């Protein structure tokens, strides 16, 4: 069904198909499943972060702390595994609990002290980065057979490609995100809050509780992303994932979510993250272009999507007025 709500995500899908189609048309190598499975693996940590960010933006907020959270969680895991000899599974468990707790704490401050999410999560961004340095100043390898074992899990696909553990984890988290957004009361409360927070309160939506849950969820997803990033790189570095919060926001917006909140889909965010990956891959395939062209293309797309959304909003208003 084509209606005003689905238009941005349809545009995203179109851009995705066009870019992928262009790659397949232009380059022989692009037609192999390897490219697709690499896209899934290489962009997994960004997409996972962006899924959490989707809930935040849907509610009309923003979370700038996610990049630092990824670095902090990685360093924390490395410390727990190497220095205390803890089994990675426990380390991951602790890392996730810490991520959720920090996210929830930011949510409490935002909800109860009514401070803008921008400022609170900006403080979180500096804080987590600082905490990461407090634990460890340098890049350290995460050496553990269990982590290596996870990295080696591989389900081959037809062609040369295959699903890594990282890609599969991302797809599971994506499915979970979609379910939470569309099939739970919490998810609908997020949409309601972003659509009109005043009305949402009058309709009986527990506003403060929902806000805390949103930032806790974003904390969970960025911590999960930190875990995946650590497995992906096999190391931890306090300066990792600088600026990822902005890439995640870009993925969410290119994925068709309205920056003002209330409208958008988690699946769109997946496409938005993939689109950024495709642009990068295309530039690599081209070979003559500098990798900074990725930023240029992402910037252009972002602008296009923001204008598209504005256009749709104006169009809907005009139509309902007439």
């Amino acid at each position: 069904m084509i209606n005003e709500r689905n238009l941005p995500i349809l545009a995203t899908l179109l851009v995705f198909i066009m870019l992928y189609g262009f790659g397949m048309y232009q380059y022989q190598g692009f037609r192999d499943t390897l490219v697709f499975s690499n896209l899934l693996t290489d962009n997994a940590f960004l997409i996972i972060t962006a899924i959490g960010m989707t809930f935040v933006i849907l509610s009309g907020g923003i979370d700038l702390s996610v990049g630092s959270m990824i670095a902090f969680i990685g360093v924390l895991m490395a410390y727990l595994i190497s220095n205390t000899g803890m089994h990675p599974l426990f380390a991951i468990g602790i890392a996730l609990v810490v991520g959720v707790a920090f996210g929830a704490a930011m949510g409490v401050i935002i909800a109860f002290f009514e401070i803008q999410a921008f400022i609170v999560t900006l403080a979180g961004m500096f804080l987590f980065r600082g905490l990461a340095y407090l634990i460890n100043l340098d890049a350290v390898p995460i050496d553990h057979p269990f982590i290596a074992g996870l990295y080696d899990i591989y389900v081959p696909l037809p062609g040369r490609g295959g699903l890594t553990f990282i890609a599969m984890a991302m797809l599971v988290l994506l499915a979970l995100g979609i379910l939470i957004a569309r099939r739970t009361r919490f998810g609908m409360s997020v949409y309601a809050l972003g659509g009109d927070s005043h009305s949402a309160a009058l309709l009986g939506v527990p506003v403060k509780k929902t806000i805390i849950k949103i930032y806790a969820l974003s904390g969970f997803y960025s911590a999960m992303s930190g875990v995946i990033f650590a497995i992906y790189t096999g190391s931890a570095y306090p300066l990792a994932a600088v600026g990822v919060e902005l890439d995640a926001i870009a993925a969410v917006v290119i994925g068709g979510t309205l920056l003002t909140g209330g409208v958008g889909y988690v699946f769109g965010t997946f496409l938005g993250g993939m689109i950024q990956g495709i642009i990068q891959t295309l530039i690599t395939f081209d070979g003559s272009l500098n990798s900074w062209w990725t930023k240029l293309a992402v910037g252009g797309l972002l602008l296009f999507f923001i204008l598209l959304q504005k256009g749709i909003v104006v169009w809907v208003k005009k139509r309902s007025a007439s």
Partner: protein
Amino acid sequence: MSHLVKENVQVKETLIVEERGKEAQSAVRPLLEIKNLSKSFTGVQALNDVSLQIQQGEIRALLGENGAGKSTLIKVLTGVYPRDGGEILLDGSLINASDSGHAQRLGISTVYQEVNLIPTMSVMENLTLQHQEKTFGLISWKKAEIRARELLAQVGLEIDPLRQLDTYSIAIQQLVAIARALSTQAKMLILDEPTASLDSDEIKQLFDLMERLKSEGLGIIFVTHFLDQVYSITDSITVLRNGECIGTFKTAELTRSDLVSHMVGKSLEDLAPTAHDHSIKRERTELLQLNNVGKQRYLQPLNLSIAAGEIVGVAGLLGSGRTELCELAYGSVKPDQGDVTLGKHSLAKSSLRRAIQVGMGYCPEDRKQDGIVAELSVRENMILALQASKGWWSPISMAEQQKLVEEMIKRLAIKTPDMDKPIGELSGGNQQKVILARWLITHPKLLILDEPTRGIDIGAHHEIIQIIKELCEQGMGLLVASSELEELVMFAHRVVVMKDHHKISELDGDEVSEQAILRTIAS
């Protein structure tokens, strides 16, 4: 004072006796009982010892002028504000709603004038929000759609529940809001000015629905400004004034003139017929002319002309269309029919800047929201309109600004230590004078004032009325809307009486008196 209080108590006592009698007859306890409810905000007593009872299957009108306490009462009932004292009983048991959601679960649902739904969600999502049915812990949209269709059918709507809410008209959104309010097994339904943006067919649809709900035993509180609607749908009327419950009356037994008297706090008999000189001494040169000017769902088309040196007052109850008339005349809201002319200039389609250039000025009702820029200085606030009419590319020199402002401060006796003080720090009366000054330095031919004396002290009140009279003597035309009849009759040469967004009458010269205006409103 004590005499008044005593009288009030008596009124209440007789009412209670009446209610008891009714109770004995029908042998049921009231659905909703409010006992001695009080609520104050930083020293202002918004509700003072209000008591009332509503039976099952009763439609009760809740009436009162601005500041009477209607919305405070509703917000206390639904738990949006905590109460200072008193009890609320629903179905005989004490309730204490902590928020709107809690009130809904208890059985009190509210539909507000501004549709309080989520515009970006679908009709179905709005209807089922917080009450979604689940299968295996997940929301079942199949069940939700069935439920949504049931609820829509209940209010007689046949629309696609999957479409986004804001693609439908306000009227439909309003009905969706009612459908939602009913979905929570409501025992009490509060409708807070639901008809303000509906046309007559839609209102009829709403009334049919209300009748049906009434027959199903629901209690309904209906807040409205439209007296016709009060008489066509309600069983009883509770009037609030200045936070006090003036009384509860059977609709059939209360005449309109008594109702209006209760609302404004003046009885017709007490008012002197007329004592002011309302004639214009000079020759008429027409200034502002509204020719069949109207806007759908806003103001019924009307004619009006104002001559130079004439003050035309706009009277009417709250929500009767006073402000709407001012906005259309000024052009901040564009009429969709008719023509506005000022002198020789037709203004119906031109920009506000053009209107200001040809001599129009407007001081809006809500000073804080529309009038002053609190952070800017007295001087900057005063110079705004003149600068806007000149365009921002031809700045007024500082020396010239200071000269103009100095003059105005002296002329209007504005009390401010210096002209660079932020206007937010001035008293209400002085802020109002600054806004007047803002327009006076543009040398308007016609000045529109909406509630020029609201919220200012008595001394400043008198001064502003003096200024209005002086401006008129200097040949300016004025259109003044006010809820205070007393002040209107003091200076107006003619009074336009508004009711239900219609101009119902125009009183001229000797006809202008408080009594006559009230009579016209009540007729």
